[in-house]
């Protein structure tokens, strides 16, 4: 890798780690209700908000009520987003006159945005009106992120408190996440993005006269508007010419900012963050990457601060960073190597001063290999799923890393809130494993971990693989599942495996060749997303409630320290081991076979 490549990566990690402490400190103050002076002027607005909602902000909830509030909130979100999509033809702010979204696609998208997945079964610029994008989808970007942060804060309180029955107030945690954290950062970020060229308007699509007349094959349509097919089933095309380009516009920057910051990932346009109107410059790309990781990284500090020992947070952050750098190295290496089959065709893929070289299929010139591989590794470590390059066209091993990171549960930084609560579950499992090895009752942060706690943690670890592998198995057995595959051979299997991993992991990126906007995939992936989010939040909250009720036991000579390098490695080992034991066979059938076939042929 070039010196500049290393410098770009080092700069990114440096800025990220530097921001973790100040932002983490700020968030801890917000959640503890000790607002820093510079935001106290917002407090009256916050209180007015509670009065209108009929919320007593001083009244805390037991975990069951907290979970119930979360579920009501989720239900409303699904209904609202579904209804808006189905009715968009009658609603305002629809300059392109887009019609109602199909029921299965609307169901899929409603679940998708509620669960912070933002799987794009649809193509934004030809499907969703500006109103649906702004007041339907972008709202869920805020709310689902805030719900994830709320659940995390509840879990942290479980560790921080002792012998109490409550874990906080869901409405207060959600409101504060939005008005003190997500909304102010998103507003500033959106404006900086516009300065880079990200668009922000409510105009109809702009038609421009292109320099050259373009000749292309236009699919022939019959009177009913369906494509005409020949005897062999291939679409019939006719030559057409155009000297016009219709340029899709819209309120992109406001959505882009929260899409990255809330690790949502649902692009305004089909091509997501590779579209020049979503991500026009290397600097907008840098900010997009930073936005994905900054809250998850800072929440580690928030965690340490709230449990009264910041070393605990740094230990988790260290483990995450080590895992991330390891995965990043594999992706960068695989993509920089380029595609041996293409070199044979008289193509130059070597990196030089004049070009980034490497595997440029599905990548943008301004990002090159370094920033495409970096973005892909970040977006799948976090449960974001925004893409600035097409993962389906990555080299076999380059595409395996994003998939594997999702399958590990997106605990390497992870989604806002969900990443750290996932990692804390792994920490519980790590302590439990260590306890088994030496025959002591496991403790973490002064809390004795008992049968109920380990059961809840196990649910969080076991449910996702069950749905991912079960769903993939189902899809490869039925015609409706196999029919969506775009690439032949092992890569086609990878497309399906990636889809279910992404849905359950609430990531939302894809091996996008898969035609997933079909009733089968819309429904199957819709349920996968739902269970992958809600079924994990409930055991996490149950664990939080159980921990909050326990006595705190003072550290003794037999207590394992959980801020030391040894614990960092134990945690890394646990994450990798659990993931490897579960997913190596499936990965073997997809990317590994494809890689071996490829090097065998050259």
């Amino acid at each position, binding site marked *: 890798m070039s010196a500049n490549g290393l410098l770009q990566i080092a700069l990114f990690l440096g800025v990220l780690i530097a921001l973790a402490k100040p932002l983490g400190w700020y968030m801890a103050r917000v959640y503890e209700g000790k607002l820093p002076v510079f935001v106290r002027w917002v407090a009256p607005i916050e209180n007015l908000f509670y009065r209108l909602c009929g919320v007593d902000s001083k009244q805390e909830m037991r975990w069951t009520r907290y979970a119930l509030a979360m579920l*009501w909130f989720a239900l409303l979100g699904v209904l609202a987003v579904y209804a808006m999509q189905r009715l968009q033809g009658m609603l305002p702010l629809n300059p392109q006159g887009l019609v109602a979204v199909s029921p299965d696609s609307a169901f899929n998208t409603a679940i998708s945005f509620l669960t912070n997945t933002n799987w794009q079964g649809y193509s934004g610029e030809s499907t969703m009106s500006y109103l649906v994008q702004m007041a339907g989808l*972008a709202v869920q970007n805020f709310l689902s992120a805030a719900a994830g942060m709320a659940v995390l804060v509840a879990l942290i309180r479980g560790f921080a408190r002792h012998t109490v029955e409550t874990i906080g107030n869901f409405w207060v945690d959600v409101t504060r996440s939005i008005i003190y954290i997500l909304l102010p950062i998103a507003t500033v970020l959106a404006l900086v993005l516009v300065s880079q060229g990200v668009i922000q308007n409510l105009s109809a699509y*702009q038609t421009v006269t292109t320099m050259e007349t373009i000749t292309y094959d236009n699919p022939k349509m019959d009177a009913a508007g369906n494509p005409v097919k020949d005897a062999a089933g291939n679409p019939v095309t006719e030559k*057409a010419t155009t000297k016009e*380009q219709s*340029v899709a516009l819209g309120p992109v920057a406001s959505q882009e900012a929260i899409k990255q910051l809330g690790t949502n990932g649902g692009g305004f346009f089909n091509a997501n963050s*590779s579209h020049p109107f979503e991500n026009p410059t290397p600097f907008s790309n840098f900010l997009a990457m930073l936005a994905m990781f900054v809250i998850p990284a800072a929440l580690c500090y928030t965690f340490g601060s709230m449990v009264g020992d910041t070393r605990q947070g740094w230990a988790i952050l260290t483990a995450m960073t080590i895992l991330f750098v390891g995965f990043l190295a594999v992706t960068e290496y695989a993509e920089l190597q380029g595609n041996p089959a*293409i070199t044979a*065709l008289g193509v130059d893929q070597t990196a030089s001063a004049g070009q980034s070289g490497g595997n440029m299929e599905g990548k943008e010139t301004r990002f090159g290999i370094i920033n495409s591989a970096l973005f892909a590794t970040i977006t799948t470590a976090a449960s974001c799923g925004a893409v*600035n390059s097409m993962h389906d066209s990555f080299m076999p091993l380059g595409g395996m890393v994003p998939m594997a990171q999702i399958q590990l549960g997106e605990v390497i930084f992870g989604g806002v809130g969900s990443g750290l609560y996932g990692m804390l579950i792994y920490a519980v499992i790590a302590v439990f494993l260590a306890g088994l090895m030496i025959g002591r009752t496991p403790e973490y942060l002064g809390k004795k971990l008992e049968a109920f706690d380990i059961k809840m943690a196990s649910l969080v670890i076991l449910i996702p693989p069950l749905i991912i592998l079960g769903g993939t198995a189902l899809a490869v057995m039925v015609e409706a599942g196999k029919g969506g595959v775009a690439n032949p051979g092992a890569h086609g299997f990878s497309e399906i495996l990636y889809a279910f991993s992404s849905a359950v992991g609430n990531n939302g990126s894809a091996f996008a060749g898969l035609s997933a906007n079909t009733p089968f995939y819309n429904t199957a992936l819709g349920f996968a997303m739902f269970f992958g989010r809600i079924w994990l939040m409930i055991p996490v909250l149950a664990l939080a409630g159980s921990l909050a009720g326990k006595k705190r036991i003072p550290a003794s000579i037999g207590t394992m320290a959980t801020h030391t390098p040894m614990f960092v490695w134990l945690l890394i080992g646990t994450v990798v081991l659990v993931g490897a034991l579960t997913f190596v066979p499936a990965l073997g059938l997809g990317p590994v076979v494809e890689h071996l076939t490829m090097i065998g042929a050259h």
Partner: protein
Amino acid sequence: MLKEIRPAVVSFLLLTLLTGIAYPLIVTGISQVVMPNKANGSLVMKDGKPVGSSLIGQSFSDPKYFWSRPSATGPMPNNAAASSGSNLGPTNPALMDAVKGRVQALRDADPGNQQPVPVDLVTASASGLDPHISPAAAEYQLARVARVRNLSPDTVRKLVAEHTEGRQFGILGEPRVNVLELNLALDALR
């Protein structure tokens, strides 16, 4: 069970107003006042009419122009209302066929040139709308454009250099050439 319905409904409505209406409209308002050109798509005007966006690539096949990167959008390439990549996998024979065809088209347009083709010029971009090519891809096409236009290679090289952006702040991203702006400048030479 039902105690949480009122907070759920009211907070959902209020937060929708705040994050779904107020926030995007405020960002739109500020952007339209402070940075109208960027907020409206960085359009390039010629004789008072929009001829493209400096951020959105256009398709070129005439040898007198620099060609953009291949685009996988449908039905026509560089369809700015339907962004998309090819999503062809690295071992898919269809990818090899596509690359082979593009290499051939470049060689047909410039028969004397047998250098290896820079990879970005024969692979589809992620968005299908990539406005840039690499400096290597511009250099590869330079002799052809100069010959067809009866210009000296140095004149064209100077123009390419004027439309080449370096890494942002000297560090970020990759050096790149804006194809639409370069071709407009070529046409404006005489």
